[in-house]
């Protein structure tokens, strides 16, 4: 498939997770790699980056998925042609010898060249390439970096570069200063041709913009569906952990296991009335569920709701009578309370079952 610039369409997402995993983790099974490929495609990724190591491991690529192959040598160029991989990625220094570039172009490969960019001046330097003979063989420019670019001038400068060179632009923001995803979203808003990211932002040094954050931003903030499916994020997270051994923080946006746990009285009260009061989207959209936690910040409504979950009906007044005990126990233990803690507090407060047949009712005795 072609991957040249097309301003009428939205950006195509490229994922570079698998080469980063191979670069760092090393051992991973062929089946896991293929599973991850399919999940990436189903989530909304348009092109999956691979390299010689991955090709060697898989021997044969699954059909129905589009790849971009990072060429690091003559052998790599031959492998790209042999396996009929339409898109290939070269580094800037490979432009110096035109032979490999010509060979790939003559074989009908669509070539992207990667440039590291850490300043606007660097973008202006790249625009001087328009005099280069090799440029005629190149389809796209990948700009990797932009770590500290927060203002709009980078968008204008990249747009100018695209016009000057007449090539497609692929933006691959690094996450050195924690703005990688935001830069990727900015690139999408400004219709860059391609945006390259990785799952959970995984990658060398500080990694890249995070794939799941970009996809969720496109779908939920920018309201542009673009064939994005976030429901498989828990499964992708599980596979990612298996392949890398990385333990993700429980608050990792979209994929952290605790992001839909809620405790504070204000939030619990709000979520009880309408979850959208304190949640940016329904947990089910990203394959998760919300969970009420009881602890120091709980209010009476939370306690009533938690007791209902435990099959215990109690009034707001009864809940208020044990609120202080709940908070003190949580502070003492330094954690949320488990069901047994709550039952113990109920026992100490002498709240007993009122009528078993009538839906497990309790009352103050």
């Amino acid at each position, binding site marked *: 498939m072609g991957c040249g610039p097309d301003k009428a369409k939205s950006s195509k997402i490229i994922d570079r997770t698998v080469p980063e995993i191979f670069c760092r983790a090393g051992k991973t099974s062929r089946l896991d790699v293929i599973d991850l490929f399919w999940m990436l495609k189903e989530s909304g990724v348009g092109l999956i980056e691979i390299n010689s190591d991955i090709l060697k491991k898989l021997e044969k690529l699954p059909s129905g998925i589009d790849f971009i192959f990072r060429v690091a040598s003559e052998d790599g160029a031959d492998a790209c042609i042999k396996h009929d991989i339409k898109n290939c990625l070269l580094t800037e220094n490979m432009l110096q010898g035109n032979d490999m570039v010509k060979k790939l172009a003559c074989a009908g490969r669509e070539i992207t060249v990667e440039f590291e960019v850490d300043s606007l001046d660097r973008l202006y330097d790249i625009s001087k390439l328009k005099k280069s003979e090799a440029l005629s063989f190149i389809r796209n420019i990948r700009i990797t970096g932009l770590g500290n670019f927060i203002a709009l001038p980078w968008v204008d400068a990249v747009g100018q570069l695209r016009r000057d060179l007449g090539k497609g632009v692929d933006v691959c923001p690094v996450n050195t200063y924690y*703005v990688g995803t935001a830069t990727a979203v900015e690139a999408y*808003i400004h219709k860059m041709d391609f945006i390259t990211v990785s799952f959970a932002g995984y990658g060398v040094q500080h990694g890249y913009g995070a794939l799941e954050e970009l996809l969720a931003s496109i779908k939920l903030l920018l309201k542009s569906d673009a064939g994005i499916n976030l429901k498989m994020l828990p499964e992708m997270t599980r596979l990612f952990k298996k392949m890398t051994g990385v333990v993700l923080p*429980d608050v990792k*946006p979209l994929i952290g296991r605790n992001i*839909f746990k809620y405790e504070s009285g204000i*939030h619990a009260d709000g979520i009880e009335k309408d979850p959208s009061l*304190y949640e940016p989207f329904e947990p089910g959209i990203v394959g998760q569920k919300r969970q009420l936690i009881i602890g120091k910040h709980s209010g009476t409504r939370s306690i009533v709701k938690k007791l209902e979950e435990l099959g215990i009906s109690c009034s707001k007044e009864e809940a208020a009578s044990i609120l202080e005990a709940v908070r003190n126990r949580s*502070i003492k233990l330094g*954690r949320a309370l488990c069901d047994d803690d709550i039952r113990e507090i109920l026992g100490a407060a002498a709240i007993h079952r009122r009528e078993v047949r009538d839906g497990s009712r309790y009352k103050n005795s």
Partner: protein
Amino acid sequence: MEADIKIVDTTLRDGEQKAGIALGLKEKVRIAKVLDSIGIYQIEAGIPAMGGEEKKSVQKIAELGLKSRVSAWNRLKLEDIRQSMETGAQIIHISVPSSNIQLYLKLRKDKDWVIDNLKRCVSYCREKGFEVTVGLEDASRADFSFLLQLVSAAFLEGAERVRYADTVGILYRQKIFDEIKAIKSHVDVDLEIHTHNDFGMAVANSIWAAEAGARYVDCTVGGVGERAGNCNFLQFMLAARACLGAFKDVDIGYLEEKEKEIMGIIAYKCPSVSFTLDMLG
């Protein structure tokens, strides 16, 4: 820490609201002392209206005589505000629901009611001699003309500063930059930005808000907070240095050390809590 941007640390209020964190008086006081030692401008110490140990914690922190200014968080209720005043906190922060969803679904009040009560509460604090800041809860989903009404009302009643709160973490550059600029052009009030990290953009959104003119930035240590957490303090400091040229004289190594100390206090007290660490670096 000397820069045009001032940090409001809300680890002890919004950070502690992360499900599962339950700090006692001793831990809150220890954390406040560490925050003070790194030059944090303002420590949002807690919610006195909760009563019990929480109120005592805010009181104790206010009594320490820290260089950092100590604030207490309140709903739009005079009875909450009176509780905060009793603690001796220097700044009374009043959180005002600002989006239609917050007004009609949670508060079940209309816009006139909110503006009247905002004026009443701010005026009450000023009469009692307290510095007041007003938080626009869920500002990122609010009707912008109503936001301007709230900002104007708060400013005219004597609020020192207005906080733009991205309560559910849905901001991105265009929106926050444009709205902060627009508020500044209408009302000459100091602005504070409060972001959440639901889409992984809390640090970037805070940077953009600062670039647009918000001089106060809310952070939490380790990024702790509801759902995916808040703007991570250390990450914001690093980003502000690189992107805005701020905090050039700050010793980042010292901040890292103190961040670890605070995380250690929280982790010791609440071992089930995990932070947003640079685990991918």
